[in-house]
């Protein structure tokens, strides 16, 4: 009756010293909390689907990671979120792209998997589906944080992308 769980909170170029020691400790604590959320479910004989959803929800709820609360800003200063989930036993899967009002996109993805005949819903339709399923809704501005806003300002200042399609679009992330 073994079990195991692994999580990630994003990968990239972490220049040394980007985080203070206190901030690093906060990140480690948030990672531990997410692992624990999934581990508790597995230890009690719960399913791997419930475990990965619980762990990802913890990470979405933490401002330290680019998902859910603390998501980055798009070119227009808004937030568009994506998520997916998949069950290895049945190959059932659910996903959403470009949702704007669901605090936990991974749970909307799971609703797509369990309560629709689709795999991927995108944009306004995905938000409408989340509301139809009675899932919590927030204002789009709820996702913003000072840390991400300053990253967005940096990205905007560095790049003066033309609005012409195909113009070199500065991406930061």
């Amino acid at each position: 009756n073994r079990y195991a769980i692994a999580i990630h909170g994003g990968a990239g170029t972490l220049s040394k010293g980007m985080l203070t020691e206190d901030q690093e400790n906060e990140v480690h604590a948030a990672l531990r909390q997410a692992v624990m959320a999934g581990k508790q479910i597995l230890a009690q004989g719960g399913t791997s689907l419930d475990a990965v959803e619980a762990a990802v929800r913890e990470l979405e709820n933490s401002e330290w990671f680019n998902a859910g609360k603390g998501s980055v800003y798009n070119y227009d200063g808004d937030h568009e979120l994506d998520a997916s989930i998949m069950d290895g036993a049945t190959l059932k899967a659910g996903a959403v792209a470009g949702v704007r009002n669901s605090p936990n996109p991974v749970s909307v993805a799971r609703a797509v998997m369990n309560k629709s005949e689709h795999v991927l819903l995108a944009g306004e339709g995905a938000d409408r589906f989340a509301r139809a399923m009675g899932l919590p809704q927030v204002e789009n501005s709820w996702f913003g944080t000072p840390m991400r806003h300053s990253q967005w300002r940096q990205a905007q200042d560095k790049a003066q992308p033309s609005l012409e399609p195909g113009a070199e679009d500065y991406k930061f992330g």
Partner: protein
Amino acid sequence: TVGAVAIDQAGNLAAATSTGGMTNKKYGRVGDSPLIGCGAYADNRSCAVSTTGHGEYFIRHVVAHEVCARYRYLGESLQQCAQQVLFEELQPRGGEGGLIAIDHTGAVTLNFNTEGMYRGWSESDGEIFTGIY
């Protein structure tokens, strides 16, 4: 981007990924996270995978499914599959990022070809590990 993979006591695998996307993205740009087979994949016959990184590369290389396919058809270890995709396929083409995976035996691997990946893991009755760099 965040993600999780798990194997439960019944031996079933699952994967999930969630993201806010890329800072300053426009035109409705979507990366690999919501694309099954790219940002997440789970199959009890092989492994569960969740990825993070430069989405366009992870889409072109169908990374999550590529790891599962290598495992299933080449008989490589989970670690070998992950290393091969991240360092032999992606890195030479500029694809930066990482992935976490668990196979149907419960083996865990966390790999990244960048300076760091926020990660954590734990096995039955084992302690909890976390890492940043």
